[in-house]
């Protein structure tokens, strides 16, 4: 015999101190902000409030280009529940210029077959009225 049930609850996750500043700049100004650790000379993207190498609290916020290079990409054929997607989704690991980090996002305006590691891409923002202060305020990245 089996008994069915779930562990499903609604959650509201705060973006936190660093995340909030990042997403507000993204939403209101179409800007990418990163934090820089002066001691480690490391630029965090997405930005953090602390350096996990030396544990300094980071207050040096810098604007960086909304442009990066594809370090890897994948063409995903299933949705988050394991169901086949009607159209595959292209996701890429995009190393953002002038940072030591990256964003993972969708790639648009390019055929999957034409994707290449090293390809330079730039963020395409949603219309301001549609933005909510989330990663999806970026519609996708397209070849730069």
């Amino acid at each position, binding site marked *: 015999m089996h*008994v069915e049930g779930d562990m499903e*609850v*609604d959650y509201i996750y*705060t973006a936190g101190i660093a995340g909030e500043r990042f997403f507000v700049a993204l939403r209101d100004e179409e800007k990418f902000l990163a934090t820089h650790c002066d001691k480690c000379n490391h630029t965090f993207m997405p930005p953090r*409030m*602390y350096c*996990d190498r*030396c544990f300094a609290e980071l207050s040096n916020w810098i604007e960086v280009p909304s442009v990066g290079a594809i370090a890897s990409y994948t063409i995903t054929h299933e949705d988050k529940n394991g169901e086949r997607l009607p159209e595959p989704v292209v996701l890429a690991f995009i190393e953002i210029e002038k940072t030591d980090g990256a964003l993972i996002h969708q790639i648009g305006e390019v055929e999957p077959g034409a994707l290449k590691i090293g390809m330079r891409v730039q963020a395409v923002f949603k219309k301001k009225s549609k933005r909510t202060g989330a990663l999806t305020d970026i519609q996708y990245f397209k070849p730069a």
Partner: protein
Amino acid sequence: MNVKRRVAVIGAGITLFRRRLKETGKELSYLAANAALESAGMTLADIDCVVMGTAPDAFDGIHMKADNLLDGAGATRKPYSRVYVGGGTGVFSPIGGWWHVASGLFDTCLVVAEEKMSPCQPHPQTAFRTIWDPIITRPLNPNLVWIFALEMNRYMKTYNIPKEHIAMVAVKNKANALDHPSAQLAAKITVEDVLNSETMVWPVQRLDISPPSDGAAALVLASEDVARKYTDAPVWIDGVGWSLDSAYWTNRDLCFPQYVAEAAKMAYKMAKITDPPKEVDFAEPYDPFTYKELHHMEGLLLAKKGEAPRLTAEGVTQRDGDLPICPSGGLLGVGNPIAAAGLMKCCELFWQLRNEAGKRQVSGAETGVAQAWGDLMQVGTVTVFRR
């Protein structure tokens, strides 16, 4: 068996405890961990390994949440363990840290406890829907407070305890918390306030319950030789104990927490304590509900069965009494971010034993005991700290 290596606490840190905090769980972990490192006079490079204590993933809403939290806890590229015994986790996390150092594998360990209960909607209670056995209990659609009310009633009926004496715990702890800078629910209240507060699940009333909270706390542990390099006033972890009783809590007598007694005996044996009421100067038993402080004093063998309420009524457990209990303000006063609240109690032992507790300072504190409790009214975790 003899323990090979003595372990000291040399730093402690804590955040504010509040119903909701803006910081992510990682950020809260960082704030507490960094404060602990600063108080120890250390940098992250001085830390060999990290132990995380954090209670159900269902609060933060992240599967394997300790993995998500680890950079905030200072564990990036370090050995990192999450120890987990439900509500008992907070006091258990320094026990986990203790064995990392006492084993000789590491000289220093950063112990971090984090809880972010506010993501869970509409109320953190909702996450508790799933702590039950899904086959024999969940179909009854229980609320977590039910089982505590059942335990409280069994305790009251077995020893004929008046509710007034139990209410005094809330009065004392909320008043003690007035002096704790992290406190969420510090207040001057009266026994009547407690007895007149809304009945949630009789005999549990509104002011018998600690609040849900966000918060984090941290300790820095070190081996004896390393500790002495950083401080003249190390606080020693001289006893650790833990015990887990059967999951079938309806098959046990709830009037006495045997699991706490087993954990306490283990910790006292290691600390060579033979007469706990005489040798323990103050204690931080787990007080998510008023009656639990009393129940746990008895489990910790600091009071005879059924006698903790009387000691409370006589003022013995006040901060200036013979046996101060929860001088921090406890969970009832400071707040209850589950694992962080347990570690807050260990932080309190550290500050008290270093004479750094300011207005909360109890006099002549040489030996302190912290204890937490959890799972299905089933686990006891105990630490004995000495100056």
